[in-house]
């Protein structure tokens, strides 16, 4: 039943490869969908792959110091690590990853690992816009964490556990058992937080391309940028899988996972294409308003 250590590592690599490829394709297809919304043909679905190859194939690169180099390492390790701590597919040995390291809290806090490291790397770049971007990003993060945390607490109360596998198990046996239907308020709060987490409109002020040239990574280039692009896919994948597990019944096989995560991610595009951008302080006030109230209601509903 329990695979040996080398086998487990091999499985982890396989799992990682799948999520990377899938994550990149997801980004590509979402860009294409956005293009359709705007009446364009749009870039090829595989464009993210080409971009990463191009970035990694640059012939020279610059660095502002050791921490600058370590920033993307932290970021990518953060993304990969987050994924490693999430069981991606229920009952699958290959996609179990290293979820025995810890429960939901470990995943929630490990998300910060990459962000913190990246922020430090960007800081050493010495570019004021990097720091401004980080300042905005962190500020926004503290705000969307509140409805998210409330939602997590609500489902912890609901299922009596913070163990992701157990939460998924509890949702098996028909879609009506999904958290989406058993605890819709928590899901709504968490999905609003997800919009903030993904940094699409209306919460894209962090990387505002025109105003503060894409924020934190403004000095990153070449293979460092390539790593950041790769991380985007892995990290997105990890977050989507986490959301799927917590709120949408998880997945018992890869195709189900693909369909569900695609649809979850699609919410971003759906909202992002329709709304303009919040300023940072507006975003903070927004998250601490209605979404937080929804989260509180979700907790109250199950706790009392």
């Amino acid at each position: 039943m329990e695979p040996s250590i080398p086998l487990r590592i091999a499985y982890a690599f396989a799992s990682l490869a799948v999520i990377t490829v899938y994550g990149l394709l997801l980004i590509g297809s979402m860009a294409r969908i956005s293009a359709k919304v705007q009446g364009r043909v749009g870039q090829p679905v595989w464009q993210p792959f080409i971009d990463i190859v191009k970035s990694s194939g640059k012939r020279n690169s610059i660095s502002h110091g050791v921490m600058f180099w370590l920033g993307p390492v932290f970021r990518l390790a953060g993304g990969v690590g987050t994924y490693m701590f999430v069981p991606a597919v229920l009952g699958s040995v290959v996609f179990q990853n290293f979820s025995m390291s810890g429960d939901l809290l470990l995943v929630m806090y490990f998300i910060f690992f990459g962000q913190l490291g990246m922020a430090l790397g960007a800081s050493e770049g010495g570019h004021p816009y990097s720091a401004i971007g980080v300042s905005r990003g962190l500020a926004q993060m503290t705000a969307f964490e509140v409805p998210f945390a409330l939602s997590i607490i609500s489902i912890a109360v609901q299922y009596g556990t913070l163990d992701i596998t157990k939460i998924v198990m509890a949702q098996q046996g028909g879609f009506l058992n999904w958290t989406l239907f058993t605890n819709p308020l928590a899901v709504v709060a968490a999905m609003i937080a997800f919009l903030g987490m993904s940094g699409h409109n209306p919460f894209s002020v962090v990387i505002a391309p025109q105003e503060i040239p894409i924020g934190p990574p403004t000095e990153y280039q070449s293979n460092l940028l390539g790593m950041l692009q790769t991380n985007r896919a892995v990290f997105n994948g990890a977050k989507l899988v986490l959301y799927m597990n917590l709120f949408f019944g998880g997945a018992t096989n890869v195709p189900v996972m693909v369909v569900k995560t695609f649809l979850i991610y699609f919410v971003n595009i759906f909202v992002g294409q329709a709304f303009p951008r919040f300023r940072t302080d507006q975003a903070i006030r927004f998250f601490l308003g209605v979404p937080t109230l929804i989260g509180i209601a979700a907790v109250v509903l199950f706790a009392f």
Partner: protein
Amino acid sequence: MVTPLAIFAAFLATGFLLPLADKLGRRVSATLFWALLAGFAGLAAYYLASFVAAPGTLEIYTGGFEPPLVIALRLGLEESAALAAVAAVALLAAFSMRKALHEAPVSGMMTFLMLVMGLSGLVLTRDLFNLFVFLEISGIAGYALLGFDDRRLAMSAAFKYMVAGGIASAAYLVGVIYLYRLTGTLNLDLMIGSAGLEGAAGAAAVFFVLAALLVELKPFPANGWAIDAYEAANPGLGALFSGAQATAMLFALYKVFPLLSDAHLAVVMWAGIVTFAFSNLVGLRQTATRRMFGYSSAGQVGFVAAALAFGARYVEGSDFAWLVAGGLLVNHLLAKTGLFLLSAAFESDGDGSMKGRPGTLVAAAAGVLVAALVGLPPFPAFWAKWDLVRVALATREYAFVALVGAGGLFEAWYLFSWLVRLVKGGADETPEAAPVPVLRVGADGVGPVLAALGIAALGGLSAWTRGFTDPLFWAPLAGGLLFLALDRLPGKLKALLATAAIAAFGYFALPSMSEFQKLFALMILGGGALHAFAGGYLTGRRAGHFPLYVMTVLSLGYALVAESALGFFMAWELMALGGYFLVLQGAKGRSASMIYLAFSIGGAFLMMAGLQLGGGLIGGAAPSPAALALVGLGLLAKLGAFGLHVWLPGAYAEAADDFSSFFSASLSKVAVFALMAALAVFGEALPGGELAWRVVGWVGILGAVLGALAAIFQEDAKYALAFSSMGQMGYVLAALAMRDQMGWTTALYLAATHFLYKGMMWLSVAGASLRTGTRTMYLMGGLIKRMPISFVSFLVGIIALSGVPPLTGFGGKWLLYHSLIAKGWYFEAAASFLASGIAFLYLYRMIHSIFLGQPKDEHRTVKEAPFWLVLPQLLLLVAVIAFSVFPRLILDPIMAVVGARYPAAGFAFEGQTLVSSLGYWNGLLTIVVVVVVFVLTFIWMVMNLRKPRLVKQFNIVFAAERPFRPETTHFAFDFFAPYRRALGFLVRGRSEKAWTAVAGLATSVAGAIRRLYTGNGQTYALHVVLYVGILYLFLGVR
């Protein structure tokens, strides 16, 4: 044995001889004067020694007959002690006044002698009318002395004094006449128990005597004349009034106690304690030193009178009077004498401005005197107060206790403010102001130093006689004294010695400790030793730092092992005192140290009351919710819990950098220790039940949220860290309030890890600010290249603090959320999420602003922090890493400690995995996965790196421009402006405003009351008369 009558003979004879001797020259008369005083003092000492050796009383009957035919005197232990006190003060005062006495006409010396003689008579006589005679002698001598150097102000004060004294004398005479009529005798001993005192007439007669004596003791508010006299008097004379005369008058009062009924005694008690509280309240607004000391003297004398009366009412036997009233009195007279003499030496004129700053020895003496007066350990008043409050609580005199506490707090405030003015010079806190020069006072310093030595010796004696013979108990004081003696050594050597001293204390203390105590000993003594070592980071001697530091750390250490409530409380107060002086030593520590002091003293008093209510800390007392609530409140103040935190940022930030670190990393933990210990002793019930604990939990959580929020808006690195500490201790408090296995495990784990990473961060910042010469973060920047070790230390610190896996901090977060959710405190958990998110903001801001971003030109050549700072950081770093990889290293002992108190509730280790009812966490596997992923990613990065070029700070894309200067390119000021727009309204210092309003109320009440003191003699006379009348009404004589 020489008969005490010789005293009067000698004084009178000398008094008459002095003018004759003066004809031969001032030198001769002065010699005579000094010889007499010295002889008197010697005789008093001899009496005291012989009565201590062989207790008993010596009754002296003048003229050889028995009373009532003749005047009787009595000399016993009590009388000889009082005589010795009078003599000691008289000597010190005369020494201080030597110049004035030598220059003024010889009548000055004569009057001085008459005053001393009158006071001696007050002590010795047993005859009521004779008492009146001595009252008049000392009174008239007093008026005369006030005016002896011919100043207009003094003359006017003397006149007012005379008016009040006249009223008192008249009342006294009336009383004596009635008493004689009723009892047929003037001898006190014969009068006691006389049937004539029964009934209303007797009560009224006694009341007149009592009222006169009370008025002479300068009760509030009928004491305007006395305050004016203190202000106008020569400081030496002030000492004489405040020390010797008050002693004699109190003794006289004590003498008539046997005549008094309980109602009389109640009047004395309440009049005394009201005087204590309100005189000190009025003193708050006072800046003129001698007038301030006048208020303090009036208050202290009232306090002693109250204690005397209290003892007479409630306690059998005279031990209480000895220990409490005697302790308070001797404490007051020595301290006040010393202070009056100090003010004579240092004050230019009456307005509170100083001529200069004292040197170390005199400053230490001043500190001792003020601390003693305020009732801090180890001085006599501390022990006296402890006993007084114990009995007062036992007899349910809560209002009395409250007045004792309030008066002490007010007095502490203005006396320490004065001390600050003295040792720091002037009233200005601007760092640019030129340092105040040290004033060498020479012989003028002898008096205060002697007084301080005496008071310290008596304090030590009190402790020793109370059975504190444990060497560990004496270690803090001994350590402090030792390092005071070594103060001339270089700072670095002293740092090593201090490390050794603390380690030695630990070596001796550890064997007797329980696991629980050891855990905290690691944080407090371990941290103490580390920070003592770090103390070597500054060049120079660091005068005064190490004595205080060693005393503080060792008293913390003793607080851990103290076996009695009193021992613990003494250590607690000593630690607060040491902390206060250490904060005061900071360049801008004035107001911060005063606020810290106020909260420390207030909190400590609550704690004392609680400890007394509960009956003792260690050694099973009955569970008492009220005791726990009081002790808890005191501890919350020390913990800086939300609402009581206003002292915290300033005190943490303005102390010297290494002490700030110790303060935050180690010292704050002692409150956690004490809180846990208090729960063990007093039980877990609070008034209000579970709801109260929920409130405590919320106080913790609010502290966490608002502390973090305040931290993100700080520009000063130390303030940011201080607010951060407040937030972190908020989590600990919340976890503690849960009171179950997971909660306490969380609390202990958070406390221990906070010690590790906060120490690293403070020391790292200390290094950075040492090298850059600023604490303002936006003035730093880019130090990573110059100070890589400090950077790594800070980095590990922030990763650990923020709770990001795989370092130790995550364990704390995991435990916190699991315990909160398991406990059902869901919204507390959500608020913690917010707080820990906000923590990211200030952590990032700090590391960015200090170590990353743009380096400034002037910091291009700074060096890594000194070895003295780096080594402690590295040790802490190793500990953090070790605990990260093997969480069991720290969690096993913690869980063992908690397990002894709370049964395991679904929360234990399975191998390396910590399993709770809600989930699991495997620290080892986590760190392995993270490290492997990180290393692989790192290899990937290095492999793909092509022609990397390390560039400089301005090689950035700056919208096709080039940056102008590093200062304009480093984005660090008002870093979270959007956050301020969104949530800044939450941290506008409401607590600060509330406490400022309280303080404002106190000072405006003080200001209003002060209007009573018009300076008009007629008004004062009216006050006295009305006062006597009102007292009579209170007596309820029908």
